[in-house]
């Protein structure tokens, strides 16, 4: 037995599902890093709840990807036995937690997208994805609500909280474009109604985000250069460290059951 990377047959639907599963796992993992260290106990509870929502989404999506692929991969093999270049998550979601403002802005940018995305995906012609979407949409809607309230308080709170939150927006803004981009493998799925075109969600996303940012007395950056690469496995350096921790047991004890 070895703990070598698994091989994945990335047909368009497998790849599409893995990308969303990786999004949920990586962000859920980041949130779980907060456990025991949040600014107050009430928020420790909230961060763990969001993390658990995302872990749940990841597990359902991985299981579905395994089913579609039809080999002997499963949720844990996808999570624990693929390396950085095989991970397909958005760059935004692997960014380190930073301070609480950074975590909230990252969560808000993604949740505001995920809420619209899952709502649209409830009409997917793929029954499993539509069912996962119906559950995930409610979870994301709450994440948007929770993060919005915090961003408004942090932006319009003290001088320090305003400064930190603006810095978080400025840092993370360049990672938001990737949420709306589509490649050829997804184009076919969009044409058959299995997937939706995320570009169509951007106006509504921008409206939600600008509304909250404005109420928080913050501003969105002018810079519209957007980083890309996560969807094809070209990640930031942060992901490798996250994976070395996430996968340490499976890599150290090949083939063991836990």
């Amino acid at each position, binding site marked *: 037995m070895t703990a070598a990377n698994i091989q994945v047959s990335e047909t368009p639907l497998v790849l599409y599902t893995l990308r969303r599963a990786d999004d949920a796992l990586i962000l859920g993992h980041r949130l779980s890093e907060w456990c025991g260290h949040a600014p*107050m106990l009430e928020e420790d509870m*909230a961060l763990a709840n969001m993390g658990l929502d995302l872990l749940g989404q990841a597990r359902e999506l991985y299981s579905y990807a395994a089913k579609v692929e039809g080999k002997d991969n499963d949720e844990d093999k996808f999570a624990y036995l693929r390396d950085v270049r095989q991970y397909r998550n958005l760059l935004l979601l692997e960014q380190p937690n930073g301070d609480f403002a950074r975590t909230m802005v990252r969560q808000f940018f993604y949740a505001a997208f995920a809420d619209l995305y899952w709502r649209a995906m409830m009409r997917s012609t793929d029954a499993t994805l539509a069912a996962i979407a119906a559950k995930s949409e409610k979870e994301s809607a709450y994440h948007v609500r929770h993060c919005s309230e915090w961003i408004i308080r942090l932006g319009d709170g003290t001088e320090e909280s305003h400064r930190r939150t603006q810095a978080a927006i400025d840092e993370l803004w360049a990672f938001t474009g990737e949420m709306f981009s589509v490649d050829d493998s997804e184009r076919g799925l969009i044409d058959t109604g299995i997937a939706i075109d995320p570009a169509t969600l951007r106006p509504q996303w921008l409206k939600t985000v600008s509304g909250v940012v404005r109420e928080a007395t913050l501003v969105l950056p002018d810079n519209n250069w957007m980083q890309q690469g996560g969807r094809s496995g070209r990640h930031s350096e942060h992901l490798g460290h996250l994976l070395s921790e996430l996968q340490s047991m499976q890599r150290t004890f090949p083939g063991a059951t836990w």
Partner: protein
Amino acid sequence: MATPNIPLWEVFIRSRNGLAHKHVGSLHATDATLALQAARDIYTRRGEGLSIWVVPSNAITASDPSEKGMMFEPAESKIYRHPTFYDVPDEVGHM
């Protein structure tokens, strides 16, 4: 430096439609919106709720336990307020 106090809230939850809201516990939050979200995150993790009320703890006016004689004992002697005070023959049936 002492940590400044964040206000305390009391949480009431309706577990099923048709039941009244019941006190389940307390939490700390700086305002009502965050208090409501915290109540959801803390007290409904196992599907315990359908509706939540949060009330600032200092908005509750409570009776004084040392006055419980004056407050509550006078009611104890008014047994004619209970149905069992009245005799109705069994053959009349349920009433």
